[in-house]
Structure formats: structure tokens, C-alpha cells
């Protein structure tokens, strides 16, 4: 079971709701994924269109736990205000905290991130920070009260997989008891399996499913990969080695010529 801020989940996939070709496709993809947590955002509402009202109806139908984000915020203050609006709007203390440094890489602005995390944690939020894989930042976030950390795999939407596996492994080793979720940059189901085989607690993705040729089938593919990777981790993966070692016993091999036999 995945436990985040005192709540248990059987699925280890957190799925984003953006970028689907239609609301119906989003609904089908979430159902196929088995995800119990979906990320949402808040955006300026138009008096004429009232787009948000229809979207909220769809989210309620899904029956998932809602994780609002602060996507697009560039400063701690913007993120804090956005989180406060999200708490009222979605009725949850949960917040996926994003403070962005650079629009091309969507890299976390880690100084503002730590500042916002400390203030939001003190204000009763359950903060899930989207961060880099940097250990020193992770330590600051944990010290600021974050009980979950979400390092990026590679830049959001890039589908490149894990850019810095060594650092991700280091994070896992340094935080054995903290739920760690790789958030962003995954493209293929094998990337998700790799995350889970490393002992990570979960995966958060969006574009890889939403923009797939067949999002519903891809959602199922990721769900299988996440489950497979987790099972492999729990089972204990054999250490790689440089030389071959026979998997079939040598003893009793037919036609085997014993040296010095006469």
C-alpha cells in the first residue's frame, strides 16, 4: 500500500488530467489506469465560458482523491496564494507545490520551493513538492515539514525518462522511510517500471498518457509497468555481474567430459 499523509492507496500511480483530446477520453484513461489520485489545477475563469464548472463535475464523477497543483507559479508568494485558493476550491489540504525557475526547462526554483513549503506546512497544508533530484534540496524540504518528496525524472513533458538515476538512487537511500514519487519526464511504461524497481513509492505522470496514440491503452500499460516494477523491487532483484553464470545446474550434464578421466 502507498501511504501519503496518513491515507492509504492501493494504486501507486498519480495521473494528471491535462491535455486529453476530450473529457470522455480523460475519464476512460483515469478508469483504465486504476489511479486513485488525480492532479488538477486552477485557472482564470471567464464569466462567459465558465469552463471550470463543467470540469469540476467530471472530476467529482471520477471519485478520485484530488491533488491540486500550483503549476505556472514563479515565486513563493504566487505559489502560496494559489495553494490557498486551491484549498478552498477543492476542499483539500493536499497541494502539489510547484515553483518554476525557467519556462524552457520547467525546472523547480528550489529556493522559492523550500520557502513556500515551510509556510504552507505551517499553515496546515500537506505539501507534495515537485523538486529536483538534489539531495540538499530534499533535506531542506523534509526539514520544512514535507512528508512526501516528488523529484523530477526529467523535464515536464519531455518523455525522456530518468536523466539522473544515480541521484535518484541516492535520494532513495537517504530517505528510506519517506514516500518518494518520481514526478515528470516519463514517456514509456518501461521508465515507470525502472522507477519502481529502484524502490520508489509511486509515479506521477500526465503527458505520456494524455498524448499517447491511445491514451486508454497507455494508461493500462503504465499501470502494469508500475505494478510489475514494484513486485520486482519487493521480490529482490538479482545483482548484475560482469561474467556469465549458468542458470542450469552443471552437475549431471550429459556428454560432460571430466578432465583426466581415463
Amino acid at each position, binding site marked *: 500500500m502507498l501511504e501519503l499523509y496518513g491515507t492509504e492507496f492501493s494504486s501507486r500511480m498519480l495521473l*494528471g488530467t*491535462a491535455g486529453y483530446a476530450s473529457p470522455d477520453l480523460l475519464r476512460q484513461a483515469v478508469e483504465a489506469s486504476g489511479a486513485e489520485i488525480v492532479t*488538477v489545477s486552477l*485557472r482564470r475563469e471567464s464569466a462567459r465560458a465558465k469552463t*471550470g464548472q463543467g*470540469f469540476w463535475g467530471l472530476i467529482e464523477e471520477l471519485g478520485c482523491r484530488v491533488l*491540486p497543483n500550483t503549476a505556472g507559479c514563479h515565486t513563493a508568494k504566487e505559489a502560496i496564494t494559489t495553494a490557498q*485558493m486551491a484549498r478552498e476550491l*477543492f476542499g483539500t489540504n493536499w497541494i502539489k507545490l510547484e515553483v518554476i525557475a525557467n519556462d524552457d526547462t520547467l525546472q523547480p526554483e528550489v529556493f522559492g520551493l523550500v520557502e513556500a513549503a515551510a509556510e504552507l506546512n505551517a499553515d496546515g497544508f500537506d505539501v507534495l513538492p515537485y523538486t529536483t533530484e538534489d539531495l540538499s534540496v530534499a533535506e531542506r524540504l523534509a526539514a520544512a515539514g514535507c512528508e512526501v518528496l516528488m523529484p523530477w525524472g526529467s523535464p515536464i513533458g519531455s518523455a525522456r525518462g530518468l536523466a539522473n538515476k544515480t541521484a535518484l538512487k541516492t535520494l532513495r537511500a537517504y530517505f528510506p522511510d519517506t514516500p518518494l514519487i518520481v514526478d515528470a519526464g516519463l514517456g514509456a511504461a518501461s521508465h515507470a517500471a525502472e522507477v519502481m524497481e529502484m524502490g520508489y513509492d509511486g509515479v506521477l505522470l500526465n503527458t505520456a498518457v494524455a498524448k499517447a496514440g491511445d491514451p486508454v491503452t497507455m494508461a493500462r500499460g503504465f499501470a502494469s509497468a508500475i505494478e510489475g516494477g514494484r513486485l520486482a523491487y519487493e521480490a529482490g532483484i538479482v545483482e548484475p555481474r560482469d561474467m556469465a553464470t549458468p542458470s542450469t545446474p552443471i552437475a549431471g550434464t550429459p556428454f560432460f567430459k571430466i578432465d583426466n578421466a581415463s
Partner: protein
Amino acid sequence: MQILVNGEHFTTDANSLDELCKTLGFADAKIATAVNGSFVAATARARTRLAEADEIEIVAPRQGG
């Protein structure tokens, strides 16, 4: 008075944030608000006075990753 609503210039006689939201047709809508970068809870909108050049944000649930 002239204010900014979601980044656009807007002329209004609304005295309070609550009145502005109602004028814009958000009386029963699922929205959250901020004035000049600070969150204003739904329960505080009626007592939140508006002033010239205030910057208002009105947001709603939307798709996100």
C-alpha cells in the same frame, strides 16, 4: 473605478469583492479569489472593499498535471 480582473481592464461600481463576483455572474459558481496577490476566502468577499487599480484574480478548477 478601473480595476484589473484576471489581467484585463474592467470598469465597475461594485463596492465589495462579493458584489463584483455577483455582477460577473459567479454568484453560484465554484471559484476562488485573490486581491492584489493575496487570497480572499469566500466568507471574506463581502467585507473586502475594492479600490482603484486593484488587481483581482478569479479562478476555477481546471485540468492539470
